[in-house]
């Protein structure tokens, strides 16, 4: 029984720690700061470097069907 209480106490303690940490992230806008200074610049660099197809090299076809229907 004592062991069970000990485990429960530990779980509660960890839960309280996680809750406090999450509240700190929320209150001090740490998610926003991490995304603004870390994630976004990293991803923007990645997208800037990405190899892309050149759509201008493709011919603009004008022989596609004209979809018209009698209704």
């Amino acid at each position: 029984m004592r062991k069970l209480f000990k485990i429960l106490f530990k779980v509660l303690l960890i839960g309280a720690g996680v809750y406090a940490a999450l509240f700190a992230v929320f209150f001090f806008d740490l998610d926003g700061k991490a995304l603004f200074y870390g994630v976004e610049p990293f991803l923007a660099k990645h997208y800037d470097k990405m190899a892309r197809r050149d759509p201008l090299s493709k011919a603009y076809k004008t022989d596609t069907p004209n979809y018209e229907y009698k209704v």
Partner: protein
Amino acid sequence: MKKIDLNKIKNTDWKKAARDFWYGKPHGERRLGELYMPKTGLYKHREWRGVKDTFYYFHNIWLYNYAQMVMDIMKFGGPVTFAKGLWRYRWMGQTYLPVLHWFDRGLEGMRGEALRASAWHYRAMVCVTINQFMGMFKADANLHGGEHNDAWKHTIAHKETVWGGIFYPWQDQFTNIPMEMIPYFVTCHVNNHTVLNYIDAVQSIGLPGDPCPMCQAEAGLFVLDDMPDYAPFVVTTNEACDGSVASTAIQDWYLDIPLFAMPQPMQFDDPLVQEHCANEIRECWKFIEEQTGVPFDWEQLKKRLERQNELQRFEWEKWDVAANTSYYPINGVAQALYRIYQSQYGDHYIWHDVDKRVRKIMEKCVSQRIDTFPKTRHRVIAWSCAPLYFSNWCTWAYNCWGLNCVINMDSLMFDMTIRTDSLDDCVMDMAKYHEWAPMRRMAVGGMHHIFELWENMERFHCDMVMMYDQLQCKGMQGVHGLFEDEFRARNIHAIWMPHALPDKRTVSRSEIRTIINDYMTTVMQEEPLDPSLLDFDDSESW
């Protein structure tokens, strides 16, 4: 190290400090502008709204929405599909990760029921957004080694200005996803950095800078090869105006798939055009039948339209409360974005879930006579097309000046239910609904419609107009002088808000705030409720 000021501690009114901690500071003492970090718009710390509302925000908005986003991603395609899309598309990775900051900007200073109801609107928009981009990624041949999988074969692409209801007859077997709603439109509200890449891209191939920046950005997505290959055919339209036709030409070039153009008449009051417009929709259905091999399903259409009509009926109830009471619990930005999103995209289960929750909140406000925006000095109607990069101006204007934006033009567009008694009546109503699209019904639908402002001002008991001035909209620029004359003749307080729709570089948010500040101090001779919000630098903010 900062010295502790003993005098300050001595002079502190502890009773008031305790009250401020428990209930939050009263409007006027909040100094919200001091929470911002310079330039970035990030918060030194998020706002303390009192114990109840701070923890509501923490549990029911911040934690809840992060959790729901994960759930939505799992539900609509899984983390692998999501990660692939995030790595491939700029508009995804750069825009949608900081979505909770979009909530923050829109909900600043909100308390009680206004905070709750407005946040639910944001939740719905996030869910539909995830639903759409995950639908794109699941079907996207770019993410699946060029393979056209089953999802690709069961997805219909269309321009964002084609109303989603056109595809209801196939919605039990096919998903319709607008091409630009998520890669362009919603991005501007959440993170306005992304869209600039697309505007610059299309100008880099020779487009002059002055056409509508919405169409520029929509075309730029294709120029930058940032559009998923997610459907075998596409439906386009000339909504909202002929700028859309021009962007379709570029999209058609790059997509190179069967395309059905479904133009709608601009001057739609002419009864002779209604039959024509209805036939365009019928032709579109023939095209879809031909492409999918699946016949038109009237029962599906009826079922979906009836669900959509339910949404419209609740919207009317909301307008009724907004127009005639001070108990309306939805702030200006939540009202505007939710309504335009819901009515343009069409039926989705989340709109119904959220409307149920909002109904509960609204009924509580009405029955208990809760004044949801108690610092309202002026009831404002916003007219014409809004700056997408500063859609939360109404939250700022309420906090700073007590300007309560009760309703806006885009909300009032699709002001109708659709008959489902017979197919003929139904198609005629669908034609009308489509003609009443955003930026079409009032902005380019003819003089009579753009001047619906006056009757709506009366209907919503507004005493001020926030007149959006989209500098690159040739249609609206053409009626600028007429509005000036009318405002003078009718003795209406109107603030012109210049902007370039998604492009914050033309008129910055700070310039917009300055224009409003100048009007409020010089013309209205009023003092700000929160002087810390008058002038701050958020030039690099999302």
